[in-house]
């Protein structure tokens, strides 16, 4: 079935709403407007305003309401327009949703799914373009996933809804338009995926950087280098085994991460490789991250700030010749 990523998200939401009356959607402009990225278009008409619930601009309150609704027996799916706005609700996610099971000695459960758009590439400047996936991946109690393909956008939600604890789903804004021919199927949230098999170097990435990593692998292949591309899919907990098994075969690794380099997920993956695969490395681990600057508006500056296929090729070439 040919689907866009946006269609896949919508189909997954519709399926979840139809399958379980306890599932509700909450978010800003998800109903009458149809979703900022049109991912929820049509759902209000089909399922009504009680279950497709437009919220006022009150991120902390409607995310916290999601926490409470989950405690009260519903299965809320809360949409936050972008990760930048999620910072207004960070208290409810980090101090609340993530802690309640432990802080209550295991009594409380918060089966809450939070979806949000992330990433740059649409010239939205420094308050609508950042990637804070690593902030959430830092927090025990959360599961953090980043569907990078149409199939994962379609299949991850159902798996996330089976969890008894909070799951944060990051949808990269550059991915909504991609298209693929897929059969809807559940997705295993515990495993990373090898998106391209290769022998000379491992490129580890996630989310919106996957298409760039695959483009870089094409360029490298044309130059005679076989790069393996791993899509982490789940950013917490990390599937370290898949990464380490690949590095054990290729002996070289480059991590591509749209977050800023300092304190990044790329740094975490590099540390894991350094701790557990040091003796199988033939070169220092490379990283391609966003430039350490608030995202600028002008197109050429935005592109210069982001990881590019060319930068990935250069980083892989560097570890091959180290």
């Amino acid at each position: 079935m040919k689907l866009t990523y946006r269609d896949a998200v919508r189909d997954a939401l519709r399926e979840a709403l139809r399958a379980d009356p306890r599932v509700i959607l909450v978010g800003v402009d998800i109903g009458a407007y149809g979703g900022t990225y049109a991912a929820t278009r049509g759902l209000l008409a089909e399922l009504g305003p009680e279950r497709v619930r437009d919220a006022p601009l009150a991120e902390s309150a409607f995310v916290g309401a999601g926490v409470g609704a989950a405690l009260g027996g519903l299965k809320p799916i809360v949409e936050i327009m972008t990760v930048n706005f999620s910072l207004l609700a960070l208290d409810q996610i980090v101090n609340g949703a993530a802690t309640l099971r432990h802080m209550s000695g295991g009594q409380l459960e918060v089966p809450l799914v939070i979806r949000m758009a992330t990433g740059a590439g649409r010239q939205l400047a420094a308050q609508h373009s950042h990637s804070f996936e690593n902030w959430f991946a830092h927090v025990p109690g959360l599961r953090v996933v980043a569907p990078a393909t149409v199939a994962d956008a379609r299949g991850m939600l159902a798996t996330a809804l089976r969890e008894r604890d909070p799951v944060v789903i990051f949808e990269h804004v550059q991915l909504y338009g991609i298209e693929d021919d897929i059969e809807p199927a559940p997705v295993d949230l515990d495993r990373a995926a090898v998106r391209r098999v290769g022998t000379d170097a491992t490129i580890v990435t996630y989310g919106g950087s996957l298409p760039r990593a695959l483009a870089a692998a094409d360029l490298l292949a044309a130059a005679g280098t076989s790069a393996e591309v791993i899509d982490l899919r789940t950013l917490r907990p990390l599937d370290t085994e898949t990464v380490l098994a690949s590095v054990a075969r290729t002996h070289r690794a480059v991590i591509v991460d749209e977050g800023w380099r300092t304190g990044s997920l790329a740094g975490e993956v590099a540390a894991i490789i350094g701790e557990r695969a040091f003796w199988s490395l033939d070169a220092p681990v490379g990283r391609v991250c966003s430039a350490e600057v608030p995202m600028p508006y002008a197109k050429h500056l935005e592109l210069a700030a982001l990881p590019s296929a060319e930068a990935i090729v250069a980083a892989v070439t560097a570890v091959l010749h180290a």
Partner: protein
Amino acid sequence: MIPSREQALGMLRAMVRVRRLEERCAEDYAAAKIRGFLHLYIGQEAIAAGVLPALGAADSVVATYREHGHALLRGLPARAIMAEMYGRSGGCSRGRGGSMHLFSREHRFFGGHGIVGAGLPVAIGLALADKLLGTRGVTCVFFGEGASAEGEFHESLNLASLWRLPVLFVCENNLYAMGTALARSEAEPEIHKKAAVHRIGSEVVDGMDVAAVTEAASQAIDRVRETGAPWFLECLAYRFRAHSMFDPELYRDRSEVETWRTRDPITQLVSRMAGAIMPEDIAAIEAEAAAEIADACAFADASPLEPVEDLLLDVRAP
């Protein structure tokens, strides 16, 4: 309202249980058996004693970090509360929460929240669940007047009113947000007026008068259950003790505290009900409370520590 003898004895019993439990907590803190923050409720007992008995078992409660009394009067056993204070496995949160984070799923007591204002959105969600699941449950959320400076307060009142949710907001106005006097933090010090701008009805009640709180709370809870709409109860009260055990109380005069102590909710009730509440009633209630607390502390003392091997339990479902 003038309570009957039986009602008055129930109110007195509730307040004495909370008062004596917390006095013991202060002693145990001095003896280093309890650590971390410890926020005592002493002086404000009439609020929890007036509101909690008016709720049903299917209703939900959300409270703050000053919640020992709310937990006890919601029905959490004193044993589970004291063991939590001691950081033991027999504690209601198995030693993971401490004084600020008492929880009981069984009693629908949803915390124990340490971030000012953060319990309000959670209460909105609990009420939304009740509404959509058709349970007729009421969610009662307690918070101090300091929370009304938080954005979450206004966001939550707006949502409760906009979505017409069965929430009873109980503002415990004790005049100080930690050390900041109300007049120094609020341009509008009459907190209930903030409910009005969100089109939520409200009542102001003397929070040192347990009979008045009981009457106002019962009516408010009935109203919320009948209408499905939120209501706001502002209880004017005073905290006799410091904000926490680390507070030298530089921000208020001893004389102010002493003046308020003349309105102690326990002695007020006893003197008002003189003739109905007899000295032997008081002695019996005190003895019961003392026995309950002694038993709770003995249980907590005997309760084992959580094994360190279990450190990582209950971060996610197994």
